[in-house]
């Protein structure tokens, strides 16, 4: 097995913050992380001179490369190093095309700079931001041999997914003077030697890449100090103040997208404040349900926001008044106001909503595959096609008529205006009674929707980790309740006064400055969530914490790693044993999980895949923190320095308070059993 890191930065570019390259740190990185091959891949540039210096300074194979901003994503291009001058010239051409951090070259420019892509290794950002877009992947698919990922979880996912590229996991490090920790992110390849051809062969075969030297994808390098972890479930055991939480913190800092449940973080301190916070979190957690549930209502409110019934009524009033005035002043009629067009009404243009919906429905019937048989039993496809054509022709005719009306209305408008200029007679204000009727009908229907969505009803009941989430919709009870929904400090007193009349309420909402139109719908109905325990009662403070722990563990699937620090400090053993352990095991099948504990319920019963033991020792007044790792069935755990300690001794000391206490407890239980 050979260990490679083909994503290393040594020169700051416009895409990086400034740093100073250190050759000593480069050499140290190669040695400490036991690398067999590296590639230098700076952003959109290649430094030929520095590359030569690095290749001479380290004892392993170094390949020239470049990381290119391409089509909004990034791509590593690595050369075999045989035509360095030519490669340098091509990279200079790339550098000239990228003049700001936001620049990105097109596929065609890329191909024109590198016309023969078969000479290079092409590795795009794959499950890593910024990802190369699918269109670019497609365009380069004959030359791309592997895809870079950003975590062990994604590495394993790509290995298991037959459609994914071979994953590679690289450091993406800046080798700088100030580098304090070396990255643990590298890829092992099953090659005898580090040659361009051998690497190319390995990267084409998913069986030839792994996260660790001996244990394939089950173990990966987690820290620069050499600590390795299982891609499954890890337990860190150790006495107090031996560096357990410190190690967890280090892991948290090394990886991104990590869920970290810290010790005591879920324990309630102030019952009232915590309950309020819990309810807010609960609502936020269920926001997708709320959003989906109210989607249709939101569309109604959005549509209703375009209707202004009051404005329409004012227009009707103006029309009636102007008509009556015009009639009263008929004696003032002159040559201009007597013209037929002076008081001519506009044509009602109408809409095409109904016919469009009909065309859509008939098209759906024609194209539907799933229910073809049923449709065919009742109506032939020929008949449907004829119907669709006729409706489409009608639509075209109506659209043409509507366009003609619009043209004539414009014409009428301008003639009326010209006539009005020359006469003292009051013109009749025009109005489209059809649109007025539409607005009134919509307002009536809107009231029906709002009253329906406000009527109190349970709209969700689902089981989550032994608890039940219940959602109830109901009307808001106060202006304060409305206010709590808004992120801005605005007053809802006037709005709440109009709450019983939906259209009036919407009208008042419109007058509240700082309120976005897109959020009006939220203020009509209150969706309240409650958590019930297994007995169907509201949860207690302790149960709330339990629910939160289970929920946080469950939701950690979207992260790349889960870290939990001493759950036993906040929860009792029965709960951990019956509810938490199994959930943690399930999650560890999806992402690496690290649990710190010194409790036998968690430590032993959870059946970890890998054990890490932290031990503090003092030698000559100097305190040393040691890390020992191994599989639970191993007789010995091995330290990062190669020393070993007995696994059983660790388990007894850390989980059972030592062998003597363990034996004593055993005796105690035996006595109780005998007395039964």
């Amino acid at each position, binding site marked *: 097995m050979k260990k490679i890191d083909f994503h290393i930065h040594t020169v700051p570019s416009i895409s990086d913050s400034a740093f100073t390259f250190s050759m000593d740190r480069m050499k140290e990185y190669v040695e400490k992380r036991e690398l067999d091959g590296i590639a230098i891949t700076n952003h959109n540039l290649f430094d030929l001179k520095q590359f030569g210096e690095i290749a001479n300074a380290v004892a392993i194979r170094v390949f020239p490369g470049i990381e290119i901003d391409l089509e909004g994503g990034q791509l590593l291009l690595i050369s075999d190093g045989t035509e360095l001058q030519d490669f340098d010239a091509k990279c200079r051409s790339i550098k000239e095309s990228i003049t700001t951090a936001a620049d990105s070259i097109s596929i065609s420019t890329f191909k024109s700079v590198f016309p023969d892509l078969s000479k290079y290794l092409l590795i795009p950002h794959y499950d890593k931001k910024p990802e190369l877009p699918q269109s670019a992947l497609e365009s380069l698919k004959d030359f791309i041999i592997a895809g870079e990922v950003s975590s062990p979880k994604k590495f394993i996912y790509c290995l298991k997914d037959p459609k994914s590229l071979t994953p590679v996991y690289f450091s993406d490090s800046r080798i700088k003077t100030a580098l304090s920790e070396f990255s643990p992110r590298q890829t092992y390849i099953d090659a005898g030697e580090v040659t361009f051809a051998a690497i190319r062969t390995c990267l084409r075969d998913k069986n030839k890449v792994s996260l660790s030297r001996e244990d394939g994808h089950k173990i990966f390098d987690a820290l620069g100090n050499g600590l390795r972890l299982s891609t499954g479930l890890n337990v860190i055991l150790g006495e107090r103040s031996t560096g357990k939480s410190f190690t967890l913190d280090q892991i948290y800092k090394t990886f991104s997208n990590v869920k970290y449940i810290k010790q005591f973080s879920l324990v309630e301190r102030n019952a009232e404040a915590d309950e309020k916070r819990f309810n807010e979190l609960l609502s936020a957690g269920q926001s997708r349900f709320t959003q989906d549930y109210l989607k249709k209502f939101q569309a109604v409110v959005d549509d209703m926001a375009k209707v202004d019934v009051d404005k329409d009524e004012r227009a009707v009033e103006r029309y009636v008044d102007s008509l009556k005035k015009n*009639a009263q002043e008929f004696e003032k009629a002159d040559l201009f106001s007597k013209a037929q067009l002076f*008081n001519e009404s506009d044509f009602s243009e109408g809409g095409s909503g109904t016919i469009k919906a009909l065309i859509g429905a008939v098209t759906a019937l024609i194209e539907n595959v799933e229910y073809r048989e049923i449709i065919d039993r009742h109506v032939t496809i020929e008949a449907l096609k004829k119907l669709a054509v006729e409706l489409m022709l009608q639509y075209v005719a109506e659209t043409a008529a509507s366009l003609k009306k619009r043209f004539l209305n414009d014409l009428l408008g301008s003639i009326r205006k010209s006539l009005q200029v020359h006469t003292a007679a009051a013109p009749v204000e025009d109005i489209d009674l059809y649109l007025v009727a539409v607005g009134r009908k*919509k307002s009536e229907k*809107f009231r029906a929707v709002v009253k329906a969505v406000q009527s109190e009803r349970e709209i969700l009941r689902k089981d989550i980790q032994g608890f039940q989430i219940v959602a109830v919709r109901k009307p808001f009870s106060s202006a304060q309740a409305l206010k709590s929904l808004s992120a801005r400090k605005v007053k809802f007193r006037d709005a709440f006064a109009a709450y019983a009349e939906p259209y009036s309420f919407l009208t008042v909402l419109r007058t509240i400055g700082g309120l976005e139109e897109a959020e009006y719908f939220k203020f009509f109905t209150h969706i309240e969530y409650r958590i019930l325990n297994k007995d169907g009662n509201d949860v207690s403070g302790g149960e709330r914490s339990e629910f939160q722990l289970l929920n946080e563990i469950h939701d950690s699937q979207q992260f790349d790693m889960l870290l939990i620090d001493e759950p036993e400090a906040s929860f009792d053993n029965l709960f951990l044993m019956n509810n938490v352990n199994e959930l943690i095991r399930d999650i560890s099948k999806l992402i690496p999980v690290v649990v710190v504990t010194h409790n036998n319920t968690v430590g032993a019963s959870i059946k970890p895949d890998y054990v890490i033991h932290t031990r503090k020792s003092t030698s000559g007044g100097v305190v040393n923190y040691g890390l020992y790792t191994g599989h639970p069935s191993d007789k010995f755990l091995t330290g990062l320095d190669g020393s070993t300690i007995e696994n059983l001794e660790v388990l007894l000391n850390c989980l059972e308070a030592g062998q003597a206490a363990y034996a004593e407890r055993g005796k105690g239980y035996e006595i109780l059993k005998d007395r039964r």
Partner: protein
Amino acid sequence: MKFLKIEDNKGFFAVDGKTWSPIDQINKEHLLQLLERALSDNFEMDNFEKEKLGNQAHQIIYKNIYEKFVELGKNKNRFKDESEAYYKEAIEKYSQ
């Protein structure tokens, strides 16, 4: 039922089809009520005939409103179809 009629050289309207008022007494509220009626079935009115309306002011008002309702009548079916569909899915969803 008839809502606009011509009698004795004058125009009349009745929002309920029974209580008749001179057309020059019409106001916004009356017109909105007539609008509701005009879009339902059974809305009738006397055709506008200039000769039958000696009162010039009535002639102007009656003609204008009559034409508005004739135009509206042409779109009665469209209005029925469209208004049936307004927020239908939402009402069904949230009434469950």
